[in-house]
């Protein structure tokens, strides 16, 4: 079973070898998709095993898959699968139009495979030092994708992304050091002092001052990756400049990986620090929701709009972790999954729109429904889904989170509701205008290819399914994840 767990990141990573073969864009895309589908299949098998038999541990904690990591692995493997299917269409189109040269196509393939594989690997390690190393490495791979198009704008976004997130991630390294230091009273080997399960068992004995510093720095450091305000400033630029499938990965996978690290730190910190951890997450969470919602009011680049929506949703997840309790954690995990699928679909849709309209400005796009019925439909329904409208999954998870809020303090729950309404209005008025209306002349009516339609339809179907019915297996995986960190 450990071998299968190793295959989860390794299969997508193999895609990085595809550029060595004399393949055209289509072949490169299918290599990525093949690896991702294989990785997802292994992730499902591992999840079934972990849900039944408990955590997998090998290599003195360097490989550690408990239900929580399995849940995140499943989520991210699904996102990587959708995004790599989206990459097939993207690569083919860029080759046809000549926007990217052969070297850039190969760089994209290698960067994408490394990005996805390293993120999946980071979720499967119990060693917090290795977690840091892998998250930083996946960041570097994604920076390549952001700067890929090589224009001044995308290089600028990539620079901003890499310098801000390197700064943040260095803070996360300091957090890891302090956590290591906090464990010095324990009779553990140096390696175990960095291994999450060992730390979790002894969490009540950690040195308090160092632990507090470790937790705060981890929230700030990994929070920079998550895009929690006020460390979110790289996020809209990187998301708007990256190729759309890469934006989907950034928003739906990278941010969640950062959140996963925060969840791990919080679980270790709670026994000693108690409600303090919740308060920290509530402050950052509400700040992110407010900033995300306010910046969505501005109409303009629609990929930036989606990016600010990610800031808002990461804020919601952080608030849910802040509310805490079984209900709060359940909401946080379910919302992670729902948001990941929804945002992945929206960014892939945005890629289709950019390809046809050749603009990222929402004002320049009218009548998507008429010109490209499938893309327009997914844009409209996907927007409704991401805003938490029933019958989609996000309604259920946001409802759970608000309920968790009412258990704690009612006015915080009301504040959350008010911000959600603001976000709804701000987001929907832009995307509704894009989808409806009479399209201008000159936008070619293209045939919808099956490859590009597949990830959009699969994602929407999953969102709808999660809104109507949570499969028993998923439910028990989430409950076991909560059990693993409480």
């Amino acid at each position, binding site marked *: 079973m450990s071998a299968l767990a190793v295959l989860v990141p390794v299969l997508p990573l193999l895609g990085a070898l595809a550029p060595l073969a004399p393949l055209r864009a289509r072949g490169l895309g299918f290599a990525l998709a093949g690896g991702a589908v294989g990785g997802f299949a292994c992730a499902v098998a591992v999840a079934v095993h972990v849900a039944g038999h408990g955590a997998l541990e090998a290599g003195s904690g360097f490989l550690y898959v408990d239900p929580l990591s399995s849940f995140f692995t499943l989520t991210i493997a699904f996102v990587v699968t959708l995004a790599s299917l989206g990459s097939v269409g993207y690569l083919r189109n860029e080759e046809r139009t000549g926007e990217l040269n052969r070297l850039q196509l190969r760089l994209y393939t290698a960067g994408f495979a490394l990005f996805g594989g390293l993120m999946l690997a980071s979720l499967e390690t119990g060693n917090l030092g290795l977690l840091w*190393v892998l998250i930083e490495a996946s960041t570097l791979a994604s920076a390549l994708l952001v*700067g890929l198009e090589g224009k*001044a704008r995308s*290089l*600028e976004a990539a620079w901003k992304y890499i310098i801000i997130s*390197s700064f943040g991630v260095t803070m996360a390294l300091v957090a890891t050091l302090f956590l290591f230091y906090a464990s*010095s009273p324990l009779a553990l080997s140096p390696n175990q002092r*960095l291994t999450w399960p060992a730390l979790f068992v002894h969490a009540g004995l950690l040195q308090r001052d160092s632990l507090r510093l470790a937790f705060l720095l981890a929230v700030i450091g990994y929070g920079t990756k998550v895009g929690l305000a006020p460390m979110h400033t790289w996020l809209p630029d990187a998301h708007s400049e990256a190729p759309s499938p890469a934006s989907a990965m950034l928003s739906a996978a990278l941010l969640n990986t950062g959140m996963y690290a925060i969840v791990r730190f919080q679980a270790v910190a709670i026994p000693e620090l108690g409600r303090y951890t919740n308060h920290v997450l509530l402050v950052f969470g509400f700040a992110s929701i407010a900033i995300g919602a306010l910046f969505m009011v501005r109409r303009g680049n629609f990929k930036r709009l989606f990016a600010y929506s990610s800031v808002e949703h990461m804020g919601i997840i952080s608030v849910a972790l802040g509310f805490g309790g079984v209900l709060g954690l359940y909401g946080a995990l379910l919302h992670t999954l729902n948001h990941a699928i929804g945002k992945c679909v929206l960014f892939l849709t945005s890629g289709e729109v950019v390809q046809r309209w050749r603009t990222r400005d929402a004002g320049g796009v009218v009548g998507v429904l008429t010109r490209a019925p499938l893309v327009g439909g997914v844009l409209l329904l996907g927007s409704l889904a991401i805003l938490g409208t029933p019958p989609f999954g996000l309604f259920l998870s946001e409802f759970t989170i608000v309920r968790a809020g009412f258990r704690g303090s009612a006015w915080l729950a009301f504040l959350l509701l008010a911000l959600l309404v603001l976000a709804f209005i701000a987001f929907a008025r832009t995307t509704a205008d894009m989808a409806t209306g009479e399209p201008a002349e000159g936008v070619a009516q293209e045939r919808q290819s099956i490859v590009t339609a597949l990830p959009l339809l699969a994602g929407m179907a999953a969102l709808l399914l999660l809104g109507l019915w949570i499969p028993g297996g998923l439910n028990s995986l989430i409950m076991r994840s909560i059990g693993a960190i409480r």
Partner: protein
Amino acid sequence: MSVLATAESLSATSTSGVLLDLSAVVMLLCAFACLGSKLFDRYVAYYAVQSIVLSLAAGVVAYALHQPALWALAVLTFLIKGLAIPLATRRFLLDRLELHRDVAISTGLSTSLIIGAFLTAFAYLAIRPSTLPHALVASAVVPLSTAIVLLGGLAMVVRRHTIAQLIGWLILENGVFLGAITLTATFPFIVEAGIFLDLVAAVLIMITFVSGLALRLATAAAPELRELRH
């Protein structure tokens, strides 16, 4: 390795402890010197000196605590941070782009030095040796490395040129590293090696981006990076 042995061989009065304290002070001075300079090649030179001193510090800890893995790290630090990164920056960025004076500084040099002094004082106040659970290390090193981290951050904030920001980040990184080798000398080597590898990859990518940006914009100063605004 027992905690007790660590405390004895690295206490502030032992020879190794004094050497370690001294290296930390020199590293802090390098950070200040960098903050007080306006010439790109000085930035790089101060960073190189700081890294070489850091590799000495790593050697001292390796010797005092008998950690063979740290010897490897000391050598790597010397070769990569002390020689390779400064040379690459000079050759691929400074010489190629013909950069000399940094004109993109938002705060005057004296002001940033004064802020730097305040940050150093703050580091001492915030991290008193007494707040550390054991008197594990030469007492001055932890506040000094915190001060270096803060000064590196300050350099990133007041400097707007991308190369100056890159150097600021590298100085910050050196501060973290100094804290790491003293506070957590027993950090698993495989993790430490991974951290090092990430650093090297990050610097390579950053150098690529900066030269790419400079070629396109003819200037890589961050205030000129205005396209992505609201």
